[in-house]
């Protein structure tokens, strides 16, 4: 049953400028009543102090943070077994644990560690998972997220997204000397790297479907341009610098095209599709209103977008082959904008205005288009789905400061990623 997984290749090999950055911490602001009780017992660790990385702690905080698990406090553990053979199931059952994870970290050569873990159902005493893999020291963090992913998927049947990454914009400094940064970090906000830094605005990061590159808008020449940057090499290419607006890049599912917003000489914003190899443009919309914020449908044949052609901004869908009139999708309220689809395209997340506040809402795309407002803030914008579709990350405000926040796709679990400095904006969750 044991499976060898090498994490060497997964160890963050992002080569961009490393810069010390205040890391994010997580606060669960609204949990779920029926969270599953699970104990993540501290892993045995080698005496070498160099390996003193607490794998179990990270697994535990990942699972707790999802809002779907209630993790047992270490001080309530009467014993700390490291293998299945050492588990006294009756005791753990009395502590009302449904599941238990035990494991070890063992040295396996210079800067090499073997991580072994097992997941048991406390009631049936059945072993549900047993894995061993190896990692170097910097890889232990990724490895821990992988353990959490496997436990999450085994118990809930949903692929975990703890070992994924996010991109976002951080704005530091104060007027008139602002420092804009495009940052890529782990999904929990740890391990941040500055991808791009500018004293003019950076906007709208969009991941390539292979997770290797980001498209974004930079005003570095005091004019907007769309850039594509390869994360591993830092190689950067300006792909759109037309007169007027160059905005809102969105990568097509096949990775070959960008949808983006350009303007005519008299300032009319419309949506175009650019072939990345040739930079040839196809105009998709042609309306005197503002058409922007395109997002590809899963089949790569149509786009969701925002348009105020009917007055206020509303969300529409249009085919990229031409011929069809855009179809309006949102009708409730006077402001619905910036659509993002869930990975299986069953849901559409967007920004809606409610009682003068901007909040994240979702629409059921498979049923009758029911709309649910998921958040309660006043400046909740820029939603982006986790690649497993379970969670939406978005930009919010906390005591006047820009923060990132998470809400489960059903609205039941909420949490906040708190940074010690800067205004955080426009999170974009990377693909698996």
């Amino acid at each position: 049953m044991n499976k060898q997984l090498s994490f060497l290749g997964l160890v963050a090999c992002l080569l961009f400028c490393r810069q010390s950055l205040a890391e994010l911490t997580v606060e669960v602001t609204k949990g779920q009543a029926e969270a599953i009780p699970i104990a993540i017992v501290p892993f045995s660790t080698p005496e070498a102090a160099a390996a003193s990385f607490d794998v179990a702690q990270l697994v535990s905080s990942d699972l707790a943070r999802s809002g779907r698990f209630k993790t047992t406090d270490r001080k309530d553990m009467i014993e700390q077994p490291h293998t299945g053979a050492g588990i006294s199931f009756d005791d753990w059952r009395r502590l009302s644990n449904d599941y238990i994870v035990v494991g070890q970290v063992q040295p396996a050569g210079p800067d090499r560690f073997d991580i072994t873990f097992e997941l048991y159902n406390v009631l049936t005493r059945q072993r549900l998972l047993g894995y061993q893999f190896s990692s170097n020291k910097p890889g232990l963090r990724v490895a821990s997220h992988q353990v959490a992913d496997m436990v999450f998927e085994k118990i809930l049947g949903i692929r975990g997204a703890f070992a994924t990454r996010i991109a976002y914009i951080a704005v530091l400094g104060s007027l008139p000397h602002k420092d804009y940064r495009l940052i890529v970090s782990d999904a929990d906000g740890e391990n941040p790297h500055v991808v791009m830094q500018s004293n003019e605005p950076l906007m709208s990061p969009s991941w390539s479907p292979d997770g290797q590159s980001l498209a974004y808008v930079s005003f570095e020449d005091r004019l907007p341009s769309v850039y594509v940057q390869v994360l591993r090499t830092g190689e950067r290419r300006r792909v759109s610098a037309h007169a007027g607006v160059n905005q809102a890049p969105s990568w097509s599912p096949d990775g070959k095209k960008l949808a983006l917003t350009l303007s005519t000489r008299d300032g009319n914003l419309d949506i175009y599709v650019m072939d990345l190899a040739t930079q040839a443009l196809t105009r998709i919309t042609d309306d005197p209103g503002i058409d922007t914020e395109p997002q590809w449908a899963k089949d790569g044949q149509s786009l969701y977008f925002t348009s105020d052609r009917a007055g206020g901004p509303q969300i529409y869908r249009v085919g990229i082959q031409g011929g069809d009139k855009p179809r309006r999708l949102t009708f409730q309220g006077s402001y619905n904008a910036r659509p993002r689809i869930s990975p299986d395209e069953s849901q559409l997340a967007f920004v809606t205005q409610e009682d003068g506040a901007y909040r994240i809402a979702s629409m059921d795309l498979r049923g009758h288009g029911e709309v649910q407002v998921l958040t309660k803030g006043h400046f909740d914008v820029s939603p982006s789905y986790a690649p497993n579709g379970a969670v939406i990350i978005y930009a919010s405000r906390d005591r006047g400061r820009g923060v990132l926040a998470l809400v489960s796709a059903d609205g039941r679990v909420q949490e906040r990623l708190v940074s010690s400095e800067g205004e955080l904006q426009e999170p974009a969750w990377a693909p698996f």
Partner: protein
Amino acid sequence: MGAVLRASQTKYTNQVFVGRLRRYVNRMEMNMKRMMSIALLLAGAALLAGCPKKHTVIEPPNAGTQVPGSADSEQNGSTRALEGGAGAEGGNAMGGANATGVLARKVIYFDFDKSEIKPEFTEVVLAHARNLTGHPGLKLKLEGNTDERGTREYNIGLGERRAQAVRRALMLQGVAESQLSTVSFGAERPAVEGDDEAAWAQNRRVELVYTP
């Protein structure tokens, strides 16, 4: 954390101060005499701040947001004038703009979700139109901005719409299309920070920037 909080409170106080000063300045918009005295005051403040460099010829985009003599303008080495009080920029080389006249006003403010130019800014548009038609070599960049509310990319559209409204108004007055360009920063380049109407009102704007 505490330090950050304190810093932002200080900043806010500054903004409130700027807001009040701006309203004050607005109220006595056409009072030339007092305008002159403010101009002198600002120039004096700049001198006191030890600002050694020649005053800027090309106005920075956030003109109208900076309290002259503050630490920031010292670092900047240039004086940023309050709207209507741009006398500190005496002898602006850009088309010989009259430093104390309406031409010194280079920011047009808008109502929430609107791109119509309000009557009180008509004379500003007319003055710049005359300046541009009289000096066909001049080029003017119109920078559209919005307040922070709403989605970022849609706000880029609204900022562009505002810049275009000013562009059209100038062209109606005979300004050549080739003299004008637009850019929209949406909500990305606020003039002042803060999430209340006082701050928003100052961020919904088009800045007129003469370029070489």
